């Protein structure tokens, strides 16, 4: 169970919610409404006020790296720090067969792991980053626009894998603009208000 308690992300009102094991919360809202900031805050990648519990333990009870090993954030724009994707996958104790299966599930092959990062398409990189985030059995997946860069067929594969992760008892928090995806996979939907809607000032005339 993931529980977020009075999280302060200005200018949003403080956020309190919980997501049970095997359930998916989707976060919707216009660009700039704070979807990414919310996911980053849950992953403890930005300093934010508020409490976040995973299975009863608050994030500050363990170190940042320990927390993020369990609560995985997958950015919309994947990060690469090696010439090939393989260099960015954990080297120790990788079950090659399992990894191959996970890659096949999203329409990739182990051969993709040894291609030059620059020669991979945005969609291939996004799917590789998704598979990379599954390594090490995280409890929570925080997915930022996981299908935005994908063609419909690949998007359907990734969506199926998200569902599979939920069956396996993982918690998924998914930020997306895709209302259809949100309706299909979510158990709960969180709508973030338009940025600054509350602070619009009358200009005293047509602009």
């Amino acid at each position, binding site marked *: 169970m993931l529980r977020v308690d009075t999280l302060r992300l200005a200018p949003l009102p403080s956020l309190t919610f919980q997501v049970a094991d095997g359930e998916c919360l989707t976060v919707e809202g216009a660009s700039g409404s704070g979807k990414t900031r919310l996911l980053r805050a849950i992953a403890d990648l930005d300093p934010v006020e508020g409490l976040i519990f995973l299975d009863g333990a608050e994030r500050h009870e363990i170190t940042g790296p320990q927390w993020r090993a369990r609560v995985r954030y997958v950015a919309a724009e*994947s990060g690469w720090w090696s010439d090939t994707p393989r260099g960015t996958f954990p080297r120790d104790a990788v079950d090659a067969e399992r990894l191959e299966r996970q890659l096949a599930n999203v329409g990739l092959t182990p051969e993709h792991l040894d291609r030059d990062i620059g020669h991979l398409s945005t969609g291939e990189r996004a799917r590789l980053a998704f598979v990379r985030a599954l390594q090490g059995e995280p409890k929570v997946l925080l997915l930022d626009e996981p299908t935005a860069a994908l063609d419909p067929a690949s998007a359907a594969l990734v969506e199926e894998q998200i569902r599979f992760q939920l069956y396996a008892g993982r918690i998924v928090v998914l930020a997306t603009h895709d209302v259809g995806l949100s309706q299909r996979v979510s158990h709960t939907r969180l709508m973030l208000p338009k940025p600054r809607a509350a602070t619009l000032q009358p200009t005293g005339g047509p602009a």
Partner: protein
Amino acid sequence: MTYVSLTPFDLALAALLLILTSGLSLAFRLGLERSIATSALRMCVQLGVVGFLLKLVFESGSPLATAGFALMMLGATAYEVASRQERRFQGLASYLIGGAAPFLAGLIATVFAVTAIIGSEPWWSPRFLLPILGMMIGNALAGVTLVLDTITSAATREKSAIEGRLALGATRWDALQDVLRRGLRTGLTPILSAMAVAGVVSLPGMMTGQILAGADPVEAMKYQIMIMFLIAGATGVAVVLAGLISVVLLTDERHRLRLDRLVPVNKPDA
């Protein structure tokens, strides 16, 4: 060989070359006459003040005056490093690293040199301590400037890669290891090339000075080799210190990347 003392007239003669440069600037409309004049004037004033100050410190032979002069160098170093950055750490951190890293490293190398190698009496004798300290700090400063610049710009540019690693549970040291390594390598490059070309491309300034002052070239060479080793040591220590401190400052205790602690600085026209 004897030392030839320069008269003010000799200096004025040398300044003629500066007038030639200004003339060129006028001829080609470079608009640099003013800068040439002010830079030259600044140099004369700075060197003049330092020369007389050093004379006072040497004559007083007081450890307090020596320490005071060293502290003045510390302040200038801190300012110099911080002002050369494209991105600076918030608050006083840039000044602290910029001053502390070169100064500490320089001080260690210098104290080692005057006690264990030169054996001057007393060890803090300003005639040995201050010029060596100056050379150490000057070189370490160049290295530290490069380290800070490389690390802060690389961390900014490679934010998504670094945060990608952090998001997978890497510690700040793992996530920033490539950036740190690149920074240290860059910081050590100048002293390595200086050692490689010493004597071939350029006669090092100190050796030139000693030879002009009438020293035997072989003796001057020995001093220069010692100085090069000391500089390499001091730069190494300073560069590593600055690199480690910047990794700590760029992240926090939760192992988050904190680029918000950097503020962009408008580089002054060099």
